[in-house]
């Protein structure tokens, strides 16, 4: 009885694990592709700058930065975003 239960569990676990190996072979294009990685990073950098712009607006509205700093930084961020 014990041996049967263990055998059932073993077969189920192995079938589930090895099943993908018996399917049609597929190549993973996302692996080791540094170009796509760089693109993803660039996009996230752009998003981070957009986020920084929003943060800047918030800091101005809550009086944490001066109008002059706000204008300087906003211009800087916008230039960086445009560069993307």
């Amino acid at each position, binding site marked *: *009885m*014990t041996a049967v*239960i*263990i055998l059932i*569990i*073993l077969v189920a*676990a*192995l079938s*589930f*694990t*090895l*099943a*993908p*190996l018996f*399917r049609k*072979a*597929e*190549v*993973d*294009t*996302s*692996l*080791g*592709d*540094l*170009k*796509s*990685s760089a*693109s*993803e*990073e*660039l*996009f*996230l*950098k752009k*998003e*981070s700058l957009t*986020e*920084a712009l929003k*943060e*800047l607006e*918030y*800091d101005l*509205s*809550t*009086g*944490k*930065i*001066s109008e*002059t*700093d706000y204008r300087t*930084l906003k211009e800087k961020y916008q230039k960086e975003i445009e560069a993307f």
Partner: protein
Amino acid sequence: MVMVQVGNYSLLMATILSTWAVVSSILGITSRSKNMIKSGENAGIASFALISIASIALVHGFLTDDFRIEYVAHYSSIHQPLLYKLGAFWAGQAGSLLLWAWMLSLFSTVIVLQNRNKNRALMPQAISVIMTTQFFFLILLIFANNPFKLVPPPPNGVGLNPQLLNPYMLIHPPTLYLGYVGFTIPFAFAIAALITKRTGEAWIITTRRWSLFSWFFLGIGILLGSYWAYIELGWGGYWAWDPVENASLIPWLTGTAFLHSVMIQEKRRMLKVWNILLIIFTFCLCIFGTFITRSGIISSVHAFAESNIGIFFAIFLAIAFFVPLILLLFRLRHLKGEQELDSILSKESMFMFNNLILVGIACTVFILTIFPLLAEFFTGNQATVGVPVYNRVSVPWGLVLLLLTGLCPLIAWKRTSTSNLKRNFLLPATLFVLSLIIFFILGVRKVYPLIAFSLSVFVLSSIVMEFFKGIRARQKSAGENVFRSFFTMIVRNKRRYGGYIVHLGVVFMYIGMSGSAAYQVEKQGALKLGESMNIGIYNIRFDRFTEKEYPERYNITLDLSVSGNGRDRGTIKTELNDYPRFGVATEVGIVRDLFPHSLPDLKSLGEDLYVIPMGFEPKTSTASFKVFINPLINFLWLGGIILVIGAHITVLPDKEEREILKAALLFAKKDMR
């Protein structure tokens, strides 16, 4: 017997599948085979099922009082209540290690399911790291500490140590372990980022919720453990700088530093090396914490179990620490910061200070914790490090941290002009000075509590100001009413405002810690039946005792009535329980009051009257008691509740963040074409 064998074989199969998951993932990476990678991921899921079966087998052992299993015989007994039979699962070393492995396999399954269509470039490496960790714990379970080891069955079980018969002890270990185990996920993705040279922000954004989740549970686990120590261990306090307590605090401190410093990387693309280092430290410290808790290497009230797992942990820790460090060295050129610090008056510089202090305290506590071991190793003599040594470092630096908590909301990212800072700083600083004066007049003359209370006012005011300004800005821009502005503001920026609420909780905790540590009152005395003693405003009268014999213990209940300022303050029930196997265990009695030495009849924030029964002489009906007044201690627990609320807000799903990650992926795919 069937379940024991099923459990054993399940663990063995899970070990083989964990190995396959690593091998298959590596083969998948080298051959770029989706099938191999999928097989590795499936092995992870299958191992979760197998470890779950093993866990069910052990639970079955407890529920059926199968004392042939040594672990069950040691931590359970026929008389043990059902709930504690279940809780005994993680009362000892083998069960705790099984819980670790089970949680990790669960998390890896969640990770696989979450990332079916995203982070594909990082997944095989991350799965390899997670499965290597799982393999380590399974090897421990099979070779060093098997939970299914059989022994000639004793007629009854030994049962849980009576100090563990407490509901908080049922939830404290799993909560703590959720934190310990959870940090494996950001660690795994950090290593994956290093291997694949994808060292930007993607791994941080992907694992942000996991980091918060782990930090939150580790923190709550620590707090629950403290509460258990307070109500169960009966020494009047909640934190004794015990090695096991420290072992959980240290990764929590580095984890807190990590949560703050990743924000700098996300917002300013700086500190990339530091963030990787922090997560390596945090993960290794979590493993170290598990080792300290379960190896019994440093003598401690928590070290209920001792065994030979040390060498396994030492080897794994060495691998987990040095391999990532070497990898980090090879990837240094990919980890250069892209921006520099603009000004000392910026949020990022405050976060850097906060990081230095947190890591500094963590290092100090770590060194002090292992000092007795080092001393014994080098000199042969055992040394102890007392509470004052720990306090000398943690108290002043803790206050600097509190100051930074108040300063941060007042300061902007990148730079803050002096005039703006002055304007924002004026109200909190004024309130700080006023509170110093008021608290001093009210009688707070000790330096640290005086600073702590006043700084708490400073931080509270800066947080309230931040909410107020946020609401006002929202009202102006969206024309909403106050309540709507308040809720929209939080929903739109859960991370910021959730974080502020967490800080609010921390302030309450500081108040509780400072008050109870600095103004604790202690008195000891013996009372005959009907006699009373005074402490502070309280009068305590020994009213009644009852003796009762239970199958597993002899119980004496001592009832006291408490009055204060001419009013009845309720009754206190304390107990002495004599367990033939464990000796005498005490149950303390606590009466809670709203304000220290004042307003009666309202429960229960301000102070605790805490009574420990020390002994009872039936011939003369005389009982001895140790009594404490612990002022403000309930602020500590209240702070914990506020922290839970704040942390929940920060981890709520963020649609915007998800969309950014999705868009980044799409952008990358399009760019490839």
